[in-house]
């Protein structure tokens, strides 16, 4: 068994949300003091129950072993960032304790303390010192940092003249060369262009493989799944699950949609986009018999239905459905034909659009459905990311004894095989899907 890196014990953090802002004026504070004198009660216990105070973390306990790469996931406001802030000593817990075994470096933001008037070279030293590097350490790694950032030519230019891409590259380069025993990282990889993001992820992978302990907050399930050895799912300031990253991601995605294969989209959903002239008000997944479900068998029928309101004013529209894995790979992107005809219009003026996938070949695992409608390809009416989640199961399919894991593939499509002796016509054809598997 390896040694501990962190032991988090009943950690809680109370934030008081001021009535008007994060800080008080002197007059308000004096006022409060006077009122408190007159009230004369043990206001300390009562304070915590006031609606202005919220527990960002409540009784959080977990252990992290050295060498683990732990992903922390959860919705906005679940307490992920507060947790990192306490672990990196930026703020104190209200209750509980954390035992730390090793030198901690934290990276909650890239480019912390960069000064626009200073040159690239000067900022490397300043930023390095702020992140806790010694001057000798920065000297030693200086060339590496510059090479990583690809900004050799502009080393003596004030960073205020840098393009934002160059700025981020330099900022990340310094941070990437930080070498603490325990590294805390908050959603910082989502900067820069795709090429640079890959480079950053690669660097994170190196750090992870070098045996250092890493705690990593991210909304990118793909990076959590590829980089982490374990994960913690946070919900409402508490640990909802700790374990393998896949298990946490599944629970996280399932938490987005608690309902079984159907969801009411009348109320606003996070990240929704579009003009809203017509809106998707409900969506569901059903099997061959029209029964809503969130579990399907590979090669079975999958029907995606959405109810749309406000269609009376819009003569024709388009729809697309995207299905992606929990790690963020879009496997299916299904555009509708250019002019959808209504399958049914009910009395309330709502219409139902149905997309049927007769033999859905998605490999076993969890999937997320995003829905989009538009007047045409450029005029968006409504976009609902992560509207539905479902899981695929291997079911009756044998796949000839192969394990149908996402490690091997993502989609099974109709195919046929043949074999022949050299020099002769094919004598036998083995259709695989339609005949053998699906009944």
């Amino acid at each position: 068994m390896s040694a501990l890196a962190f032991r988090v014990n009943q950690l809680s953090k109370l934030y008081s949300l001021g009535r008007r802002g994060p800080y008080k004026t002197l007059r308000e504070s004096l006022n409060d003091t006077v009122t408190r004198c007159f009230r004369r009660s043990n206001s300390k216990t009562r304070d915590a129950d006031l609606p202005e105070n919220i527990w960002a973390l409540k009784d959080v306990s977990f252990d992290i072993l050295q060498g683990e790469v732990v992903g922390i996931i959860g919705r906005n406001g679940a307490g992920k960032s507060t947790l990192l802030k306490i672990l990196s000593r930026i703020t104190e817990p209200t209750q509980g304790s954390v035992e730390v075994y090793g030198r901690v470096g934290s990276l909650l933001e890239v480019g912390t303390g960069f000064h626009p008037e200073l040159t690239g070279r000067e900022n490397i030293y300043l930023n390095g010192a702020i992140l806790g590097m010694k001057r000798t350490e920065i000297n030693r790694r200086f060339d590496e940092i510059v090479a990583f950032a690809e900004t050799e030519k502009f080393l003596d230019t004030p960073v205020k003249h840098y393009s934002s891409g160059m700025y981020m590259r330099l900022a990340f380069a310094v941070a990437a060369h930080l070498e603490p025993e325990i590294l805390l990282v908050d959603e910082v990889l989502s900067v820069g262009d795709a090429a640079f993001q890959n480079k950053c992820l690669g660097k994170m992978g190196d750090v992870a493989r070098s045996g250092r302990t890493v705690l990593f907050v991210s909304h990118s399930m793909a990076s959590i799944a590829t980089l982490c050895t374990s994960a913690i799912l946070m919900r409402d300031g508490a640990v909802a699950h700790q374990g393998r990253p896949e298990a946490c991601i599944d629970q996280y995605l399932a938490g987005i949609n608690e309902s079984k294969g159907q969801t009411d989209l009348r109320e606003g959903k996070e990240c929704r986009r579009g003009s809203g002239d017509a809106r998707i008000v409900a969506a569901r997944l059903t099997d061959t018999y029209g029964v809503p479900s969130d579990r399907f068998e590979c090669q079975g029928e999958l029907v995606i239905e959405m109810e749309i309101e406000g269609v009376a004013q819009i003569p024709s529209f388009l729809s697309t459905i995207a299905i992606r894995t929990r790690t963020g790979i879009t496997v299916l992107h299904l555009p509708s034909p250019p002019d959808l005809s209504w399958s049914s219009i009910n009395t309330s003026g709502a219409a139902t659009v149905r997309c049927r996938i007769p033999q859905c070949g998605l490999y076993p695992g969890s999937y997320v459905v995003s829905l989009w409608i538009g007047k045409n390809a450029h005029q968006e009416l409504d976009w609902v990311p992560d509207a539905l989640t479902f899981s695929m199961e291997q079911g009756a399919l044998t796949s000839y004894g192969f394990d149908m894991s996402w490690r091997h593939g993502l989609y099974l499509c109709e195919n046929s095989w043949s074999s022949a002796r050299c020099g002769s016509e094919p004598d036998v054809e083995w259709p695989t899907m339609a005949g053998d598997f699906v009944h």
Partner: protein
Amino acid sequence: MATQTMPVLVLQPSSGWFRLNLGEVWDYRELLYFLMWRDIKVRYKQTALGAVWAVLQPTLTMLVFSIFFGRLAKVPSDGIPYPIFAFAALLPWQLFAFALTESSNSLVASQNLITKVYFPRLVVPMAATFAALVDFAVAFVVLLILMLFYGIHPTAAIVFLPFFLLLALATALSAGLWLSALNVKYRDVRYTIPFLTQFWLFATPVAYPSSLIPKPWRALFGLNPMAGVVEGFRWALLGKSNGTGPLLLVSIAAVLVLLITGLRYFRKMEASFADIV
């Protein structure tokens, strides 16, 4: 199973005991150095006159004082030419006023650092205070030239100058500790500082000698540590002063009290800086 070593660190709510932990500030001395260096490098960037400002500020103030207090109001100057008399006091005063203003605003100005990285927060007002030394050094050269011009030679007492310089920095830092920590919580402080430095200037014998104060009250005058500093500077540089002795001892005691309470208040508030700044 490997025997579990002791934790390097335990994070928990601070118990309210007075822990200074100055050793940690020493560990972060490189950060202190880099923050100072940044402040100095950036100070006169994109100004037309650049470091000339460091010369102009005390020189112009000295001229104004010389005309209004020396010439028109005929304020006595202990037998020293008034311009030198004023400049020798303006030197530590401007160091103090600048360091105080900068350090008081330093925590709020470093908001982005405080909410994103851990380091002993003491480093921030310390760096802001010490960065004022560069302007002081430039102005000091101006004083030496002035003294040469008036034919005044420094006495052997000049060896005590570093002590008074230290006292000035300690005064600025201790007031800066109080004000910067208060400023995090109450932004009112920012608007108070210009008035504070103005009133403090009148309470300090910069434009006038402390010999104007009736003798029995003079020691009490030392409760303002800058009175001790200014008189100390005049004594160390020009060899003449009425301020040393009881006044200085009172000033030193006042600085110590202010510094220790300031450190204590700062440490107490430190835990919540990131939450309320």
